[in-house]
């Protein structure tokens, strides 16, 4: 028998939430349940049909984000043009009212993308279990919370029982050593990890991110990293909480106050992986080796350095891989071996729960300041929440974007998934800060290249994919 080893952060959070075991399945207590209009109507319908109450409305928070328009929100839900979207939004309004759930409606300054709002309000806290009917719930792992997406049946289960039936995942640690080069950040780290392990590489695991490069990230950067964890197949990503985490939380609307803060803090400090803990899989990358990355294909694992080129299907031995690569190139309208910087973009989207926080907007604004969006490019910035928008406006970022020729929008998921009017036309190429470049994700026939906010901003100015480092040099010379 192997000697007893220490616990990982994931093990600790798991153990602290174990309510019972039933038939080999754990019943795990859920501390925070975030809900939105798209994945909940059927869950509430199920509750009503079975006459079940919501067990803990106080541990539930609702927002309207996925299909709200990003213009004219003050006109209210009644003015939403899309009939089905309106119906979903109205259904949510009715459900939160009937069950006494706190709700930030469209137009409320606190509303925004669910994964931006939870942390911003201080609802997301270290050591919590957090679920939401949205796969990018992994974002909240940045705080050292166990957070992952669930399906609608599970939403109903959590509403009714405040627990989730779950099976424990395996432990993986991804260590990012060293310091990145200028112009390289969390989005590039995340894409590099997915490029390394593949989109199914994390299946069955919870990933803990460690190493100096991760420690040096701001909370925004950590959220970007954990957000994209799901694209590597792992349901949840974790970063152990530290001073950066505590400083972010202090004073937030729902963070613990006074004596409760001290109590919470001493607990949060225990939330680290024990030194002798053993991971089922370890992946190690050097941050200094990572270049600004872009995706060339239709899966987030299709990444390449911006200085690189689209692959040649003949490079691959396996026949199905060849076909897959060719299919992706055809869809993306790229030829094998084409330099990535040759790809002309039609649309630039800065937003989504991956990159719509204040720091993301600052890094994009730093690139566009004093420059102009290329004539043929339609560019939009969609802040992640009303509060991010207000903060950006206070800092004058909106003026920088508008002066450069960007559209400055109201918060929501927007072109990340094209459920609202913001979407790509067939064949349009988009430099996007979102998280999925699947076929049709941003609009039928649309072509998505994922990249960081600074890279997307640079592409807007250049009119094609471009190495943001060229702009940084330009800046220092000026």
């Amino acid at each position, binding site marked *: 028998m192997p000697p007893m080893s220490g616990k990982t952060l994931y093990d600790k959070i798991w153990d602290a939430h174990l309510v019972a075991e039933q038939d*080999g399945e754990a019943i795990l*207590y859920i501390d925070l349940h975030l809900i939105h209009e798209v994945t909940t109507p059927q869950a509430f319908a199920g509750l009503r049909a079975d006459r079940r109450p919501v067990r803990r409305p106080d541990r539930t928070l609702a927002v309207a984000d996925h299909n709200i328009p990003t213009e004219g929100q003050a006109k209210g839900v009644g003015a939403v043009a899309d009939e089905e979207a309106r119906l979903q939004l109205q*259904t949510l309004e009715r459900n939160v009212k009937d069950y006494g759930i706190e709700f930030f409606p469209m137009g409320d300054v606190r509303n925004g993308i669910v994964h931006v709002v939870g942390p911003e309000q201080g609802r997301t806290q270290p050591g919590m279990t957090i679920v939401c009917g949205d*796969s990018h719930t992994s974002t909240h792992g940045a705080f050292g919370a166990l957070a992952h997406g669930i399906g609608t049946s599970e939403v109903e289960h959590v509403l009714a029982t*405040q*627990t989730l039936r779950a099976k424990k995942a395996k432990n993986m640690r991804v260590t990012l050593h060293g310091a990145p080069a200028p112009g390289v950040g969390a989005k590039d780290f995340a894409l590099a990890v997915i490029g390394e392990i593949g989109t199914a590489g994390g299946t069955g695991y919870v990933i803990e991110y460690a190493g100096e490069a991760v420690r040096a990230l701001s909370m925004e950067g950590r959220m970007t990293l954990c957000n994209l964890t799901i694209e590597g197949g792992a349901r949840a990503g974790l970063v152990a909480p530290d001073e950066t985490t505590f400083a972010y939380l202090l004073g937030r609307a729902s963070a613990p106050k006074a004596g409760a803060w001290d109590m919470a803090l001493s607990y949060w400090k225990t939330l680290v992986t024990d030194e002798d803990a053993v991971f089922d899989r370890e992946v190690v990358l050097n941050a200094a080796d990572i270049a600004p990355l872009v995706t060339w294909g239709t899966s987030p694992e299709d990444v390449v350095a911006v200085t690189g080129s689209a692959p040649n299907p003949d490079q691959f031995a396996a026949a199905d891989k060849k076909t897959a690569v060719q299919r992706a190139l055809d869809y993306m309208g790229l030829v094998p071996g084409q330099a990535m910087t040759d790809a002309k973009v039609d649309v630039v989207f800065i937003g989504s729960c991956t990159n719509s926080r204040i720091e993301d907007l600052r890094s994009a604004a730093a690139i566009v300041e004093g420059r102009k969006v290329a004539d043929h490019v339609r560019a939009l910035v969609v802040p992640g929440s009303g509060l991010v928008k207000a903060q950006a406006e206070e800092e004058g970022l909106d003026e920088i974007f508008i002066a450069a020729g960007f559209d400055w929008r109201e918060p929501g998921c927007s072109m990340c998934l094209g459920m609202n009017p913001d979407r790509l036309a067939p064949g349009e190429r988009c430099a996007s800060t979102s998280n999925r470049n699947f*076929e049709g994700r941003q609009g039928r026939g649309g072509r998505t290249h994922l990249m960081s906010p600074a890279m997307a901003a640079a592409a807007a100015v250049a009119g094609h994919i471009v190495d943001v480092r060229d702009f940084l040099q330009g800046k220092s010379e000026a």
Partner: protein
Amino acid sequence: MKAFTRLDARGVPLQIANIDTDQIIPKQFLKTVEREGLSKGLFYDFRFDPEGKEKPDFILNRPEYQGAGVLVAGDNFGCGSSREHAPWALLDFGISCVISTSFADIFYNNCFQNGLLPVVLKPDEVAALMDEAKGGNHMVSIDLETQTVTSPSGKAFTFEIDAQRKTKMLKGLDAIGETLTAVTNIDVYEAKRALDQPWLERA
């Protein structure tokens, strides 16, 4: 939830890897507040051209695969967004079993919540089924009790499935009802947490 015991149905081969939930059911079909009727959006962009006309050569549109109940799919089926509309759409279309070499986690879970059986077979077994399903005889049988898939030509493949999940599928058991049998444990846990970590209680 409907119980799943045994299924004899047409198998349709869909030899594409990494089919994501956006492809299974594009987002324009997510704006419903119902569970039924989603079959019209299933594999929409594969089945229909931009004008909404059926693409006759897409496999699900071919006459010999009408009424299919089993989908034989490529690797990593169901990746991407957590939308449960994906299993609902498959079920509404009449497909109650998907066979692949691997599934994405959330999709795999969602299947069990809804009585759709995801079956993992070895790559050569999936390849064999795929080949046979492309031929003239498409009848595939799945027996959950014995954990066996039988190919049109009679080759039998066994598959693994978690014992609890199997029981629930066989009985069509609802997870909420089951969890609520442990409601005292939840009460006790909550009371203890309120003392240990009072900052989590929102007054």
